[in-house]
């Protein structure tokens, strides 16, 4: 579903990605872990076309990204921080996104129902709490039945109930064949969701494989300790 080869990106003197390769088959969840500043968000943003890579190639569903915007019709994106035009209602934001996507399959409003967001969508976005905005963000990511969903720390800011609703949604969409690339600092969540873990450090892939393999390779009992061990090895 997604293939990345030799991705490099530099911001001035700072080399954020130094040759990243990544591969994920359709219907899998890839979790990207790594300390702050390891290049996780930059990697996601290159896949989305928000950031231009200096070198390297990206394929999504067999199609190589070459600066066009059409492929994003098959993508869903849930950014880390959600800010919408303050005076629009949630429903208007979703309608704008739908108009930009053009007519297609019926929207997936399952999350709206699961979170009972109906009444919140009628209010101006500026009056919504941070958690509710984050839910709106998640709704937008799943609304158009994407083939690939990119989530940047999806459960940050969600309460445990809301967070498990989102995780259930991810797992059920995965069985439908949808692929996911997500970042998280919560390793238990990573262990629960991800089929494969990619550990980024200083712009390079330090480890890539099933969560179990990470535990075996480092001799640790859980992923959190395994990741900590990986970070220590380099330091």
């Amino acid at each position, binding site marked *: 579903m997604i293939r990345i080869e030799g991705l490099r990106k530099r*911001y001035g003197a700072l080399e954020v990605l130094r040759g990243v390769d990544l591969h994920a088959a359709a219907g899998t969840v890839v979790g990207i872990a790594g300390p702050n500043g390891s290049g996780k968000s930059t990697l996601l*943003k290159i896949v*989305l*076309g*928000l*950031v*231009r890579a200096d070198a390297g190639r990206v394929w999504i569903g067999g199609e190589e990204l070459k600066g066009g*915007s*059409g*492929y*994003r*019709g098959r*993508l869903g*994106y849930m*950014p880390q*921080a*959600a*800010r*919408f*035009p*303050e*005076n*629009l209602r949630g429903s*208007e934001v979703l309608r*704008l*996104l739908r*108009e*930009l*996507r*053009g007519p297609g399959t019926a929207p997936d409003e399952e999350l709206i129902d699961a979170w009972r967001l109906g009444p919140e969508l009628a209010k*101006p976005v500026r009056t919504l709490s941070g958690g509710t905005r984050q839910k709106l*963000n998640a709704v*937008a990511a799943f609304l158009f039945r994407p083939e690939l969903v*990119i989530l940047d720390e999806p459960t940050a800011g969600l309460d445990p109930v809301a967070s498990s609703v989102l995780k259930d949604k991810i797992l059920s969409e995965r069985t439908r064949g949808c692929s996911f690339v997500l970042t998280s600092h919560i390793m238990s969540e990573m262990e629960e969701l991800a089929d494969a873990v990619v550990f980024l450090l200083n712009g390079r892939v330090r480890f890539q494989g099933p969560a179990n393999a990470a535990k075996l390779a480092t001799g640790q009992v859980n992923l959190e300790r395994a990741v900590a061990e990986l970070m220590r090895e380099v330091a």
Partner: protein
Amino acid sequence: MSTTTKIVRYELRDLVRSRWVLGYLLFFLLFAEGLYRAEDSSLKALLNLVDVVLLLIPLAGSIFGTIYLYGAREFIELLLAQPVGRRQLFGGLYLGLALALSTAFVAGTVTPFLVHGMDAPGAWTTLAAICAAGVGLTCVSVALAFLVALRFDDRLKGLAIVILAWLALAVAYDGAVLLAVNAFADYPVERGLLAATLANPVDLARIALLLRFDVAALMGYTGDVFQRFLTGGFGLAAALAAAASWLAVPLLLGARAFQRKDF
């Protein structure tokens, strides 16, 4: 409907409910009403309006423009994650804000005069010219503000730059030109003066508007030079070309910066 139109529509829906834009409209409404009541002749009222338009509109456009683009950063990222081209999104963002600010200015300014009516000959054409100049300055200042906001990620720096640019073009420029004219009073300076005016959109708007009033005569010889230059075919073409490039150059540079930017 094109992508740009869709974005403009939603942006207008957002801005129409914005307290800042409503306040902007209200300001012009109260100001024009006040002028109408305070001045005994409608031409005098319009002359006072010119000063405010030349000073306030570039400032408001610059500040609104930078703050708006900085504030929309996350939403721009979300929109760019949709199947939307960057050029269309940039066009939509720009048109939406320029349209909202222009409409607030024109509606606020014109309404009191429409309600009370004006009797002086030529007053309506002059009001139309003021509105056109105001809309033009709005478009130019929003374009410059967008360019600055795209080139500088540091919000404070961006705001400082547009405010300095405003001070330079709308406030200090005139004084500097006067000083220069004074210093070189013994030399033929008309050409230099004309060039200096063409090089500043605020000055260009000022001269074009003031020539509509009798005060042009008060400007003496210089007024006469401008009168002859701007009513001639070549002069008018040069003035229009200068105004158009003040709009086109920042817009094109802004579109290019938007196209290449890493969000």
